[in-house]
């Protein structure tokens, strides 16, 4: 790369802007391992006491079960959303299906709908179907709400694959399904990976739906766990414990993001075509 101008002014501005964020992360990290005397700014002792929630279920229940639940929830998102979007996106992009325009318009509208506004209707449907207060119910609702986004993104990726590849595949004697699986799917893999990561992160961070649609269930995700230890008016409210759980909860997100950040950007590169 040739440089037309020096990079340091840009870097300086960026660091200044992101300084509050960096300080915040640093203080969360430091606070979760130390104790600070009241009134002081700097901590005075190192302790692992704030991480006792990892081994002591008496604080707010078993964190490992909550972690496992969150993983199950997030991975279900990945599986359901990528599978259905991979097929649905292909269908609306390539197949001459009846009511295609209607579907596309519906997907667009659903995509633009904030999920909170649907919550009463969703609640009634779940209640009626007997899925209220179950893991399966929450997973289905969350996945459904993510699908319009997923299908739309995948449609954009499929639209970018040339028709001729499909024609060539058919001419080579392959069925439409084989063409899709062996020839077209590999072309949209970057989009599928990005969508999967996105679905994972979205599922991992979901709070509202499990809280409302499965309030008493045994199934408890990390976001609900976090909420339960942060009841600010309780006597034994431990702010450093809250920070530690928060850090624990954020860690996988940070790791996933660092690993996949380039792939995530793909969504905005390939998914823009309407």
């Amino acid at each position, binding site marked *: 790369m040739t440089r037309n101008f020096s990079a340091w002014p840009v870097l300086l501005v960026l660091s200044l802007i992101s300084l509050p964020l960096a300080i915040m992360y640093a203080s969360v990290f430091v606070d979760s391992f130390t104790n600070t005397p009241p009134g002081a700014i700097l901590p005075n002792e190192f302790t692992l006491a704030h991480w006792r929630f990892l081994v002591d279920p008496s604080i707010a229940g078993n964190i490992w079960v909550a972690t496992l639940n969150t993983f199950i929830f997030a991975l279900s998102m990945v599986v359901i959303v990528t599978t259905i979007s991979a097929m649905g996106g292909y269908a609306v992009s390539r197949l001459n299906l009846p009511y295609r325009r209607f579907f596309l318009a519906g997907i667009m509208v659903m995509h633009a709908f904030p999920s909170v506004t649907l919550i009463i209707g969703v609640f009634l449907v779940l209640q009626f179907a007997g899925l209220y207060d179950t893991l399966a119910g929450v997973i289905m609702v969350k996945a459904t709400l993510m699908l319009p986004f997923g299908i739309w993104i995948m449609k954009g990726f499929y639209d970018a694959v040339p028709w*001729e590849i499909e024609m*060539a*595949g*058919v*001419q*080579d004697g392959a*069925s439409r399904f084989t063409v899709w699986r062996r020839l077209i799917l*590999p*072309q949209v893999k970057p989009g599928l990976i990005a969508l999967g990561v996105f679905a994972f992160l979205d599922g991992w961070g979901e709070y509202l739906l499990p809280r409302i649609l499965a309030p008493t269930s045994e199934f408890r995700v990390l976001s609900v766990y976090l909420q339960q230890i942060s009841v600010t008016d309780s006597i034994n409210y431990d702010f450093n414990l809250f920070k530690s759980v928060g850090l624990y909860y954020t860690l996988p997100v940070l790791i996933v993001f660092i690993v996949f950040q380039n792939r995530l950007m793909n969504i905005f590169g390939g998914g823009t075509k309407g």
Partner: protein
Amino acid sequence: MPIQLQDFTKRFDNTTVIERMNLEVHDGEMLALLGPSGCGKSTTLLAISGIHRVNGGQILFGEEDVSEQPSQKRNVGVVFQNYALYPHMTAYQNIAFPLEVRGMGREQIDKEVRAIAALVHIEQYLERRPGQLSGGQQQRVALARALVRKPGVLLLDEPLANLDAKLRLEMRSEIRRIQQETGITAILVTHDQVEAMSMCDRIAIMNEGQIIQIDTPTEMYRNPKTQFVAGFLGNPPIAFVNGRASGEAIRLDADEVTLPLPTGARRPKDGEPIVVGIRPEIFGVNGGSPIGGRVSFVETQGRENLYDVALPSGAVLRSIQPVRHDISVGDQVTWGVNPDALMVFSQDGTRL
């Protein structure tokens, strides 16, 4: 395998693109579908391949009516303009794909792929992906993929359009060589008359969904049936001048020039408006009927020069001659036209 189209009709929604077209391709022949863009030649090709459904008429491969068969069953090899290679597979996997789909054993596939790779000269590139191949090599891989399962028919959709001039020349003879070595019946779709004339046994010229004329390249050039065909073939193109019949002669409009009617042409009625076609190579010869005009443009082509000669009426004739230095733009010239090679068309474009 011989191919036959009988009353083939194709509509898109309510637009009829091709109406009742008849075409016969002989076994082992290479036929060009030549025409301007939008004339329906690619539509015809895709209908033969099975990607487009026919709306009427029949497509016969040999004796068999394949009109209702899906692409997968037709056993047709197609080379697309952009080659449509599968970008995530190596050249080897690309060529092997049609055989894999058929469930052929691995050893057999390997044998077939290597044999076809040898035919199209790409043995050393088999492990590369399409992105790592040059345009000409991609073209060869596409040809190999189309031919590897020994189709009865090979269809080529503008196969040379994406290549640079030098490669185009090379692939032109390569495709012809491969076609002749395999003895396969082939249809080439192109808008480039040079490709059609140099590669094919016969040319079918199409316009607006109709085949205007089918002939060998030489015959087509020498003996076009309509003004459209005459204007489409030939580079530099033929010049047309309006005129009127008067007895045994033709009077060019607004010019004091009379030309004798070519022998063999049907006699037009006296005073009937006609169009005279003059190819560049028959104007500027020694002898013949003289036509005078002013040189309005000189195009250097290396071995030859192309002269545009404007007649007093404003019509422009073209003359191609060996390079000469005695003529420059603005000169008045009087050059001869070989009267026997003139082409005369009636007002509606049919040859007299």
